[in-house]
């Protein structure tokens, strides 16, 4: 089989799973639905490996294939095929997406067991994986947009999965609206590309772009900026990031899969895929890099003060995606993609561990209430520690190699780009502090009531279910998580998924050690060979120097967190008192929600209200009621004649004829 046949199979399997589970929800027992959902994704992963082996069997230059099944749209000289594009970049993404998805499906199999919407959940989840694969495998911009919109819908459906919660449905709407703003950017970019180059297919577009555009021509810059709008909305970068923390209302596997590991990295993939255009528009690329940098710092500082466990991890996700966006924008393509992969491992793992702890807390996500889970949930805490170490870039873990590679590239590029190295290392310090703030506040210490109960009785505290966000009592009909909560210690499926990810989080970095193997770079090289920026390679010595600095910073960050939250537990409160304004500023998330409210939402509402009060009331209503009143008035006049007296009709008739006769008599004489 060829690589493209494997890729078609990769696309087909999750689609079959989604449709099969969705239509068969009455016939299939819950267990079978879960197994089916997991198995289709697992098989898709195996097919992805098949495609990988096919590509590896070819020469580096020949590793790109386009294939199409049929015409998607063919009108007026525009011919769009339902086509895919298989090259190392898309296969890399396919492997990351299907691999992590398989594990998260496995985790959901246990975690969602008592949920009343078990079939619905797996159907949505499979549909999401299908859409994401369509996005990464698409062979032209039209299919890319289709996949892009599908993942947006899947994200909306899964955020609002527990639709009895008003907070969840509202968060879903927010995510959808912001994502649609991004979709508009992407669609306009595609229109511009078609106008300038006359094709939607990746092959011709990227081949002809260097001849059509000269560097920093306004049109290519506009295309890149519009692409960035799409990428930033999907990847939760400033200023389109406010939906991501709210999206944590969804079930934890969803946060883990969509809002950490896969969908939110679509923006990184988009920039890497269209790198040819970004090379031609260095201004746009620099803007992207600076926004990535700003996001990583802003999100990092907010994560320092968040007290909601999942939201804190969500801000960390934004911050890590900031690194990736920065990487692929300045030219560290394979480093950015490598960070995408390792981040998928350790962030999915952290969310899974957080889900396990939140389940033990009966859906309470506030870390102020958590304490001493280290003793109560040994497995969860060990895996959380693994994920935390990787996120904090502890020497030797996967995050250590991937993050520093981006920063080493920024140093090697030199000039203005040194800023990215310096502030990137500062961001790494923040990362280490906030990660271990979470770990030190949740795991060690005297167990809280729920943890103590887990130690004593071995079961989870179940209270009357309440919405963790608002505290209102939950509507426990359908669309509700169910009263049972599943933790990793008692659910083998969750344990396996977290175990595998913990292993990957710790050791996946070893496939890309500077000067030793650099597997990912070699594999992705053919894709990025056309970019002059790919020629800049940090020397092995510089890379190792960067790694040493990174190690020192990571250890320093962990040390600061240890000092603040373990040795001097009273220090954080004192710090908060001392720096009250800063804390308030950060705690309110830099007032971004309020800013958007003032700049966008309120003007829009004001325009709407103006239109309603003035235009609608006077112009539209006036026109409509005016017409109606005229017709009614003239009707009233004519109606008086129709009085129902037959004799009066006769009189009118005779009078009329008499009048006519008189007229003709007079006029003829």
């Amino acid at each position, binding site marked *: 089989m060829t690589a493209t046949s494997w890729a078609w199979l990769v696309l087909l399997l999750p689609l079959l799973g989604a449709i099969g589970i969705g239509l068969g929800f009455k016939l299939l027992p819950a267990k079978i639905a879960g197994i089916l959902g997991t198995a289709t994704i697992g098989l898709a992963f195996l097919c992805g490996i098949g495609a990988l082996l096919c590509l590896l069997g070819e020469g580096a230059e020949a590793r790109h294939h386009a294939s199409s099944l049929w015409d998607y749209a063919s009108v007026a000289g525009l011919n769009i095929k339902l086509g895919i594009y298989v090259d190392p970049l898309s296969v890399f993404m396919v492997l990351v997406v299907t691999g992590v998805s398989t594990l998260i499906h496995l985790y959901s199999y246990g975690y969602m067991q008592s949920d009343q919407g078990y079939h619905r959940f797996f159907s949505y989840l499979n549909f999401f994986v299908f859409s994401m694969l369509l996005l990464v495998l698409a062979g032209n911009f039209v299919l890319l947009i289709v996949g892009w919109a599908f993942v947006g819908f899947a994200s909306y459906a899964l955020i609002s999965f527990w639709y009895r919660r008003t907070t969840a449905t509202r968060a879903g709407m927010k995510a959808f609206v912001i994502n649609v703003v991004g979709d508009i950017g992407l669609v306009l970019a595609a229109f511009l590309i078609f106008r300038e180059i006359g094709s939607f297919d990746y092959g011709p577009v990227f081949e002809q772009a260097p001849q059509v555009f000269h560097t920093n021509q306004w049109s290519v810059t506009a295309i890149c900026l519009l692409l960035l709008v799409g990428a930033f909305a999907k990847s939760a970068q400033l200023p389109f990031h406010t939906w991501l923390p709210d999206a944590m209302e969804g079930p934890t596997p969803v946060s883990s899969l969509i809002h950490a590991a896969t969908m939110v990295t679509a923006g990184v993939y988009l920039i890497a895929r269209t790198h040819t255009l970004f090379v031609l528009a260095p201004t746009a690329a620099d803007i992207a890099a600076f926004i990535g940098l700003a996001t990583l710092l802003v999100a990092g500082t907010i994560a320092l003060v968040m007290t909601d466990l999942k939201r804190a991890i969500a801000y960390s996700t934004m911050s890590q995606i900031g690194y990736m966006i920065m990487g692929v924008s300045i030219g560290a393509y394979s480093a950015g993609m490598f960070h995408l992969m390792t981040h998928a491992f350790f962030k999915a793992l952290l969310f899974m561990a957080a889900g396990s702890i939140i389940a033990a807390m009966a859906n309470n996500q506030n870390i102020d209430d958590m304490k001493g889970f280290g003793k109560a949930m040994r497995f969860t805490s060990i895996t959380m520690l693994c994920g935390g170490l990787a996120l904090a870039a502890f020497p030797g873990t996967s995050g250590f190699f991937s993050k520093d590679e981006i920063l080493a590239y920024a140093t090697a590029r030199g000039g203005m780009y040194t800023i990215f190295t310096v502030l990137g290392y500062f961001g790494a310090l923040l990362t280490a502090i906030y990660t271990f703030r979470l770990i030190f506040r949740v795991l060690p210490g005297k167990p809280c009531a729920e943890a103590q109960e887990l130690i004593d009785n071995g079961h989870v505290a179940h209270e009357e279910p309440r919405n963790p966000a608002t505290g209102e009592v939950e509507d426990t009909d359908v669309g509700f998580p169910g009263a049972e909560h599943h933790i990793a210690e008692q659910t083998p499926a969750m344990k396996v998924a977290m175990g595998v990810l913990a292993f990957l989080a710790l050791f996946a970095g070893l496939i890309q050690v500077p000067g030793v193997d650099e597997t990912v770079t070699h594999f992705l090289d053919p894709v990025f060979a056309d970019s002059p920026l790919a020629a800049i390679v940090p020397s092995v010595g510089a890379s190792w120097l960067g790694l040493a600095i990174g190690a020192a910073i990571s250890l320093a960050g962990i040390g600061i967190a240890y000092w603040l939250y373990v040795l001097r537990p009273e220090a954080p409160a004192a710090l908060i008192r001392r720096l009250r304004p800063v804390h308030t500023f950060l705690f309110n998330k830099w007032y971004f929600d309020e800013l958007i409210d003032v700049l966008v939402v309120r003007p829009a509402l004001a325009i709407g209200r103006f239109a309603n009060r003035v235009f609608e009331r006077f112009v539209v209503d006036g026109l409509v009621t005016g017409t109606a009143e005229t017709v009614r008035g003239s009707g009233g006049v*004519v*109606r*008086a*004649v*129709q*009085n*129902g*007296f*037959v*004799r009066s009709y*006769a*009189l009118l008739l*005779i009078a009329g004829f008499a009048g006519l006769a008189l007229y003709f008599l007079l006029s003829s004489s």
Partner: protein
Amino acid sequence: MNVEWYIVLSALLFTTGAIGVLVRRSPMVILLCLELMLNAGNLALVAFSRMVGNQQGQVFAIVVMVIAACEVVVGLGLIVALFRRKLPLNVDDLRELRG
């Protein structure tokens, strides 16, 4: 004999009929007055036919008689139906067509 006399008689008959239709309320009488008006027309047709000396006017008079017979059939039928349903035999009370 001069044709004017016939025409004057015809006009008088027609006016009598028309006034009858307008002032009487009984459907029976209205029907009679309608007949009167039709026959006034017939008289005028026959008179003109004699004056001109051709037969077409008389043919028209026969056609009008046929129509008058039809009209009587329908009109009397309506009156019988009204009577059977115990509706008032007064055209002013039958005002369902009022707008």
